[in-house]
């Protein structure tokens, strides 16, 4: 009885498999890629979407939450949003396919569809572990994306914006990006809704930082109110490399943002910052799996979450410190403002420490707006909603301001205040 219930295919699961069958012969890929795809789809078919019984998906029961999947369709939008910062070089995908020919001074830009056709993409279509549902879905359906190569020593002053435009329908993209030794760059990965109607999006960024690379990588998720967004950032940080990773979620109906980070080189440093703006009847899950795998590495992780209406948020933060990763210093914090009685946030920090000489800490807070602060602002003539928005802004601004780059800070603050104007 139980087994039957577990194996019953949901409408979304059926639609997913049907969608794959409908695209056989159409999805790009040589023999190796096609067999990799087939294996992933078989896995999805056999195991189904994860339920709350799967620990990694305990707070995001995908089988229940994912109600339907739109058909994959051609791009219908011609919307061309401006880049987040004026100076940025734009690299666009539209409905999961490369949009226009792209060249950016100083870096090598290739087509991921070509990698699929040539078969060089096949090894990367593997999953990280058996619960890597995003890897499975993306590997099955991915059509295109960009391969970026920052040559060793390159200092790219101009920010690069990967602008992934998603309208109604499906889009599955992948971005393998390598930063050569000693290179410096800022990359903005932005997912934007372009038309109304339900979008089903999966995206995997596969990033490596070679020795001494210094990278700022910013993920901006602004999908539509009906959209499902399943995304993964896979990172490997090499010797003495520094990664500043900033993630902002300000959209979507059902969102899972996974950060799978391997701190793999001595002297490496990760600064992870996240802002989650949640409202309406939405569900947003940020799951971090961070491995400190060698000695002498440092990381800090700070998330600020603001939850309005009946929204639900999840943060799972797993830090694993390997047996020989002595002198690791890792600090994680997850702070949440609950703005309504029906808002929910689940924070699950996990530390798995096998080394004995490390500094590791985590803290989680949940609070409401401070009434004394609200009263003070109102006593100066600032109306209730505006005062509330100012205080929410203050709560998240601290994290944004750490980025220091003035244009970036301003652009991100604008996203936050626009979002608050619509939801607060």
């Amino acid at each position, binding site marked *: 009885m139980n087994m039957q219930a577990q194996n019953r295919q949901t409408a979304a699961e059926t639609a997913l498999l049907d969608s794959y069958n409908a695209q056989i012969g159409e999805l790009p890929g040589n023999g190796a890629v096609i067999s990799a795809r087939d294996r992933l789809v078989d896995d999805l078919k056999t195991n189904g979407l994860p339920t709350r019984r799967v620990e990694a998906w305990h707070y995001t029961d995908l089988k229940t939450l994912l109600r339907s999947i739109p058909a994959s369709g051609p791009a219908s939008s011609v919307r061309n949003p401006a880049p987040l910062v004026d100076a940025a070089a734009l690299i666009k995908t539209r409905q999961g396919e490369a949009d226009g020919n792209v060249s950016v001074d100083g870096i090598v830009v290739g087509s991921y569809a070509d990698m699929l056709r040539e078969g060089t993409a096949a090894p990367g279509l593997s999953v990280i572990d058996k619960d890597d549902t995003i890897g499975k879905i993306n590997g099955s359906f991915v059509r295109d994306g960009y391969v970026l190569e920052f040559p060793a020593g390159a200092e790219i002053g101009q920010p690069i914006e990967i602008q992934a435009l998603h309208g109604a329908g499906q889009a599955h993209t992948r971005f393998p990006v390598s930063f050569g030794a000693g290179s410096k760059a800022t990359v903005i990965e932005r997912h934007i809704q372009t038309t109304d109607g339900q979008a089903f999006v999966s995206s995997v960024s596969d990033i490596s930082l070679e020795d001494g690379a210094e990278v700022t990588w910013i993920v901006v998720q602004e999908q539509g109110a009906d959209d499902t967004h399943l995304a993964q950032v896979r990172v490997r940080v090499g010797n003495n490399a520094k990664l500043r990773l900033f993630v902002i979620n300000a959209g979507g109906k059902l969102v899972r943002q996974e950060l799978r980070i391997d701190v793999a080189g001595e002297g490496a440093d990760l600064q992870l910052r996240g802002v989650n703006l949640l409202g309406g009847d939405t569900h947003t899950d940020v799951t971090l799996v961070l491995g400190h795998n060698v000695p002498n590495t440092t990381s800090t992780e700070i998330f600020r979450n603001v939850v309005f209406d009946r929204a639900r948020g999840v943060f799972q933060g797993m830090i694993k410190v390997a047996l020989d990763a002595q002198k690791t210093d890792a600090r994680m914090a997850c702070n949440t403002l609950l703005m309504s009685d029906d808002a929910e946030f689940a924070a699950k920090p996990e530390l798995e420490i096998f080394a004995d000489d490390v500094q590791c800490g985590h803290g989680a807070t949940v609070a409401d707006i401070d*009434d*004394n*602060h609200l*009263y*003070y*602002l*109102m*006593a*100066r*003539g*600032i*109306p*209730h909603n*505006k*005062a509330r928005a*100012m*205080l929410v*802004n*203050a*709560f998240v*601004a*601290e994290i944004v301001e750490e980025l220091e780059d003035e244009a970036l800070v301003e652009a991100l603050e604008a996203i936050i205040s626009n979002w608050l104007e619509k939801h607060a």
Partner: protein
Amino acid sequence: MLEIRNLHARIAEDGTEIIRGLNLTVKAGEVAAIMGPNGSGKSTLSYILSGREDYEVTEGEILYNGENILELDPAERAAKGIFLAFQYPVEIPGVATMQFLKVAMNEQRKARGDAELSTPDFIRKVKEAAAELKINPDMLKRPLNVGFSGGEKKRAEILQMALLEPKLCVLDETDSGLDIDALKIVADGVNALKSPDRAVIVITHYQRLLDYIVPDTVHVLYKGQIIRTGDKQLALELEANGYADIIGQAA
């Protein structure tokens, strides 16, 4: 300008009655001092005037320019020109002082139907007012009140008052925590705002502040009622003899 009639109020949370039948009239152009021992309801009165939600008015009314303001929230009252300089201004991390000043000034202007200030006009006004109050411009770069000393906080309150140009200024123990130099600066700031269409209510424990901000009327508040009203002589009398005599007479 302000007429409080038979006001009764209690703490919303536990129902403790603090104001018990208070009557007070303050005319435009007047400086009124409210004095009284600890726990007499002075701060509570200032909070109730500003519209703080923690207090519940159970009886009576507060007329401001003839309008009952009890149904208005703090922002609406502020936009109508009521300003409370707090005894303990709160620190608000993450809210930049300049941004706060600009939003407050413009929201009040909007509520009154005036055009918003341009940024250069705004900056000029702040610089001028800050210089008058001997406020270090670096202080304005910090988040609101964060890391300000006690004296800096009080001066920042008077700066806000000068910029917002309220009609009814309520100063809640603005002298506490000020040294004599700071006290003079703050008093000068208040005196500069005195005008025939503006009233000032000074709440204080001590006569000292009243040497610098000279009151037209002095009211003694005790157990939630005004038990004695007089002119500035009354404050001197209190300074010399304490509250015991007056309380004894009232009882």
